[in-house]
Structures are given as structure tokens and as C-alpha cells.
């Protein structure tokens, strides 16, 4: 049996449970979390290596045969995303040591970070649509707690709305699964895919596909369902925003990627056309938000919306370049968004505000943080040789091949405006006349910058090593183009 497949889920789960018993011993908690996260990175590297050699790995939980039991499936896409998740978890953890504060640390912060990782890794690895729902819920429950932990007024107010939106979308998820089950009579994604292919996707399946799109669109913040995101992501402390911004929306996007390539790919005229249109609107709305705000956190938050649009646009193309671009861009964006949030957090901590108009001249006192931010910013915008470039190039190639010229233009223009939005932070925040800030000396900037720099280095490596990484990306893309690979690996025919 390939128990390795399930270890990235099991490890944080056990760690989270153990950490509960040490809630008052912060040093032990930090140590255990760090060990667990490092192990998680090693495990996911092993998993990638094994998937690279042997192809898709499937674990039938409890040895119940494939369509009847729950399958845990690690294809290259899932493994890559699990690795990215673990790297981000590691970096955010180190950042939390110096910024989250003992109050939160004593009240199960680290446990819930681990439970969040359980949900995210599980959602990436599961091969069962109901199990996907369960892991979504594990992830969301932890995110509710992380969002409200600390109990400031803004946090409580935004948590209410966040929980309400997610409860509704979860109910919709259950309803969609119920409809799907009544039509195809199975929950295993490989088996669902096979049965839909046999019946050739009648109209009812397309309706179900759209209801799934609404569910995942709510989680992944697609236009017009993104309205909850800017408020809710603004409230919690920076490490939590970094985790949410890098991981949560991407899980929604991954779910769209998985379901719309594996299950609902027969009526592309309708479903993928719809996805493409929504993606373009998502990019436009996100760009308007990113350009319009003068609040550094808000700018980066709207950049999440843009990225979600870019990735879904890649999915809607359904050709090799488009899908590889979507995969590459997802990985790139998870890492760079986490890095940007961490850096923006440092700026907000030094200056005591997140309003750009009230800061300036930080580059004199903090040159390293400034240049790290600069690299992260141009990497986000996609300037070669950094990691955003390859993803966007693939997306654009896909757009040309799919003859989606509107999307092509929108991506190019929005990239420029993305660059503008982050350069606005750099110019107004780091350049200009230095000002005196009250609590600047209390902030351990050199320590806080380490995890952010780590993520930026990963991102640079991703950009410079595109040649080396591309085989993995294309292996991840193959089952998306040809679902038979996935189905055969899971059902062992």
C-alpha cells in the first residue's frame, strides 16, 4: 500500500492534536510545529519523487476497493500543491514566532494552523467528491477559528460574515453532491468521470456542473462571488492573512481545476465558456481594486482576486499551454502572495498603519526588506526571469491557441496594472522622505524578513529553474487533458 500518500494529511493532524496538550508551553509548541513542518516538506518532496517515477499513486483507505471506498489520490498536480502548501506553512510559522503574540500562541494558534494544513493537504489529495467536502470543512473550521482568534472588534464582525458565506456555500456543496450522486450513483471522482463519459454529459450534469462552479467560486473568490473576500481577509493578523491568501482561495481554484477537467469536460461550449467569461471579469474587478486602493493590505488582497481570475482563465482554455500555465501560475502565486503579505505586514508593523499615504522612506532604515519586496513585486507582475513570467507566458500561449484574444489582452493589461499597484507600494512606502515612527524599534525586522526572503528565493528558483521544473508541470497537466490516465490509476483497470 502507498501509505506515503496519506502522510501529508496525517502528520499535521497528529501534530495539531499533540500541540493542544502543550497549549501553555510556547517553546515546545514552536519546536514541535517547526519539526512537523520540516518533516512535511521532506514528505511532500518524497511524494513528488515517487509520483514522478511511478505515475499516479492511489491509496484505497481501509482496503475497500476503488469505487466503493474512499480513494486518496496523489497525482503530480496534487503533490506539487502539497509541497507548496508545506513550504508556505513553514515560512508563515517562522514569521508567527515573532509577530503573532503570546496571547494567541497560548490559545491554540499553532494547533489550528496545523489543522488548516490538514484540510488544505487533504483537499488536494482526495479522490472522492464527498471527502473533498469534508476536507473543505476541516479547512474552513480552522479558518473560522484563526480568523476570530484574538477577538478584536473588526475580527468578530468580519468572522460573522465569513462564517455565514461559507455555511451557505457548504450547504450548496452538499446539495450539489446529492444531485450528482442521484444522477451517477457514485462519489469516487474517477468513477464519476467514467460514468459521465459513458452518458456523454446530459443537460442535468451541466446544471450540476454550474452549481459546483458556484460553490467553488464562492470559496475561490470568482466574480461575482468574491465580495466577501476583501473585508474578511483584512481583519486578522498578518500571518493568518498570508495563510488564507495563499492557501484558501487556491483550494477553491484547485477544486474547479479538478472537477472541470476530470468530470465536467464534455460540454465545454457552455461550462468552459462561462468559466472564461467569469475569469475575465474577475481579473478586471481585481485590477480595479488593486489600482484604486491606498491601503497596502487591500492592494495585495485585490491581487489575490486577479490571480484567481488568471488561473481560472487558464482552466477555461482547456488546452495544454493553458492548463500548464494555470498550474504553474497557481504554484507561483501561492508562494509570492504569501511573501508579499509577510513583507507588507512588516511595513505595517514598522509604520503602525497600513495606509500608504502615511508612510515613506523605509528603504533607508530597512534596505534588505525593501529589495526583497522589490523582487517579490516584479516577480508578481511577471518580469523575466522571475517566476510570474513563465506562468503568464504559458497562459498567453494558451490564449492564442484557444483564440481567446479578449482574455489575451486583459491578461497583458492587467499585468501592467498589477505592476503599477505593487510599485505604488514600493515607491510610496520605501522611497521618499524618511519619517519617524513610534514603535519602529520594537519590530524585529531582520528576523521577520527571513521567512519572506525564503519564499522569494523559492520564487526566484521557480523562475530561473523553469526548464528543470517544466517536466513536472507537464506531468501534472497530462491527466487534466486526458482523464483516462487518472481513471485507470484509481480504478486499476
Amino acid at each position, binding site marked *: 500500500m502507498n501509505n506515503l500518500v496519506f502522510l501529508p494529511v496525517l502528520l499535521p493532524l497528529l501534530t495539531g492534536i499533540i500541540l493542544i496538550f502543550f497549549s501553555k508551553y510556547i517553546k515546545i509548541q514552536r519546536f514541535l510545529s517547526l519539526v512537523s513542518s520540516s518533516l512535511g516538506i521532506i514528505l511532500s518532496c518524497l511524494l513528488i519523487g515517487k509520483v514522478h517515477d511511478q505515475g499516479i499513486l492511489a491509496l484505497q483507505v481501509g482496503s475497500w476497493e476503488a469505487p466503493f471506498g474512499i480513494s486518496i489520490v496523489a497525482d503530480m498536480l496534487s503533490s506539487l500543491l502539497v509541497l507548496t502548501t508545506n513550504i508556505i506553512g513553514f515560512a508563515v510559522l517562522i514569521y508567527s514566532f515573532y509577530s503573532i503574540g503570546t496571547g494567541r500562541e497560548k490559545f491554540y494558534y499553532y494547533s489550528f494552523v496545523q489543522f488548516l494544513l490538514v484540510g488544505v493537504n487533504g483537499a488536494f489529495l482526495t479522490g472522492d467528491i*464527498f471527502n473533498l*467536502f*469534508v476536507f473543505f*470543512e476541516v479547512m*474552513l*473550521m480552522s479558518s*473560522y*477559528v484563526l480568523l*476570530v482568534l484574538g*477577538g478584536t*472588534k*473588526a475580527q*468578530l*464582525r*468580519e*468572522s*460573522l*460574515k465569513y*462564517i*455565514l458565506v461559507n*455555511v*451557505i456555500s*457548504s*450547504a450548496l456543496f*452538499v*446539495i450539489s*453532491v*446529492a*444531485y450528482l*450522486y*442521484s444522477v451517477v450513483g457514485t*462519489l469516487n471522482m474517477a468513477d464519476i468521470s467514467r460514468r459521465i463519459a459513458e452518458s456523454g454529459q446530459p443537460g442535468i450534469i451541466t446544471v450540476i456542473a454550474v452549481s459546483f462552479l458556484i460553490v467553488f467560486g464562492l470559496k475561490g473568490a470568482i466574480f461575482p462571488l468574491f465580495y466577501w473576500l476583501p*473585508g474578511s481577509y*483584512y*481583519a486578522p493578523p498578518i500571518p493568518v492573512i498570508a495563510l488564507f491568501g495563499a492557501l484558501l482561495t487556491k483550494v477553491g481554484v484547485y477544486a474547479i481545476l479538478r472537477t472541470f477537467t476530470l468530470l465536467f469536460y464534455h460540454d465545454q461550449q457552455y461550462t468552459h465558456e462561462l468559466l472564461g467569461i467569469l475569469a475575465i471579469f474577475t481579473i478586471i474587478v481585481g485590477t480595479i481594486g488593486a489600482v484604486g486602493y491606498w*491601503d497596502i493590505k487591500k492592494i495585495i488582497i485585490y491581487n489575490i482576486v486577479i490571480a484567481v481570475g488568471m488561473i481560472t482563465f487558464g482552466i477555461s482554455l482547456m488546452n495544454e499551454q493553458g492548463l500548464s500555465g494555470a498550474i504553474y501560475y497557481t504554484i507561483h502565486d501561492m508562494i509570492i502572495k504569501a511573501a508579499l503579505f509577510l513583507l507588507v505586514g512588516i511595513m505595517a508593523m514598522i509604520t503602525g498603519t497600513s495606509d500608504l499615504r502615511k508612510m515613506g522612506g523605509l528603504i533607508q532604515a530597512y534596505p534588505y526588506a525593501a529589495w526583497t519586496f522589490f523582487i517579490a513585486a516584479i516577480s508578481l507582475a511577471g518580469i523575466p526571469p522571475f517566476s510570474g513570467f513563465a506562468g503568464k507566458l504559458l497562459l498567453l500561449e494558451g490564449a492564442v491557441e484557444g483564440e481567446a484574444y479578449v482574455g489575451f489582452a486583459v491578461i497583458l493589461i492587467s499585468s501592467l496594472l498589477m505592476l503599477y499597484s505593487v510599485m505604488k507600494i514600493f515607491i510610496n512606502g520605501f522611497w521618499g522622505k524618511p519619517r519617524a515612527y513610534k514603535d519602529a524599534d520594537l519590530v524585529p525586522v531582520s528576523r521577520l524578513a527571513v521567512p519572506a526572503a525564503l519564499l522569494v528565493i523559492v520564487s526566484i528558483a521557480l523562475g530561473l529553474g523553469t526548464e528543470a521544473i517544466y517536466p513536472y508541470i507537464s506531468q501534472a497537466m497530462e491527466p487534466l487533458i486526458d482523464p483516462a490516465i487518472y481513471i485507470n490509476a484509481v480504478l486499476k483497470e
Partner: protein
Amino acid sequence: MEIVMAVVIGILFMSATYLMLSKSILRIIIGTGLLSHGAHLLILTMGGLKRGSVPLLGESAGPYVDPLPQALILTAIVISFGVTSLFLVVAYRTYQELGTDNMDKLRGKESNE
């Protein structure tokens, strides 16, 4: 029987929507409860309603009820139970901290102070 269930589920969803559109937090939470009840009944109905059979597949299986929807409902009930209790606690804390349960007053400013 399915028709009756469909009507019941529809009424549940309708009341849930009505309650969730109101301003009081408590009504909204009751609305989410009704919404998840409706969803659970929907799973049950989608599995097919058969009367007088057991959800077991014996050696010489006669008519049996599909056991899977019941397992799904159980999972979904547990989850919605957990979420609802957390929601209630958060709502209570919000009421304590902000002194209101009116969603209109919980809108938050543009600056999100």
C-alpha cells in the same frame, strides 16, 4: 413520497432564505440551521426512498436501501452541528464586544478601523 419530500425541502429552503435575509444575528443562525436540514433531507431523498427495507446487503439480498446517503447525512450533520455551535459562540462574543446584534450596524467602515 418523493414529491412530498421535495415540497418539505423547498419550504425549509424558503424559510432559511427568509431568515437569513433578516437583520438579527440569531435569526440568521436559525436560518443556516434550516438550510442545512434541507440539504440533509435532500441527500436522503436523492438516495431514493424505499419503505420497509434495511440498508444492508446480505448474502441473499432482497430489496435494500442504499446505505451511502445515510453515511453522508451523518457526516454532514456532525459538521453542521459543529459549525452552528461555533457560529453561536462567535455571535454571542460579537454581541458582547460590539453591543449589537443588528447586521446593519455591523457593516464596517471603508477604512475597516
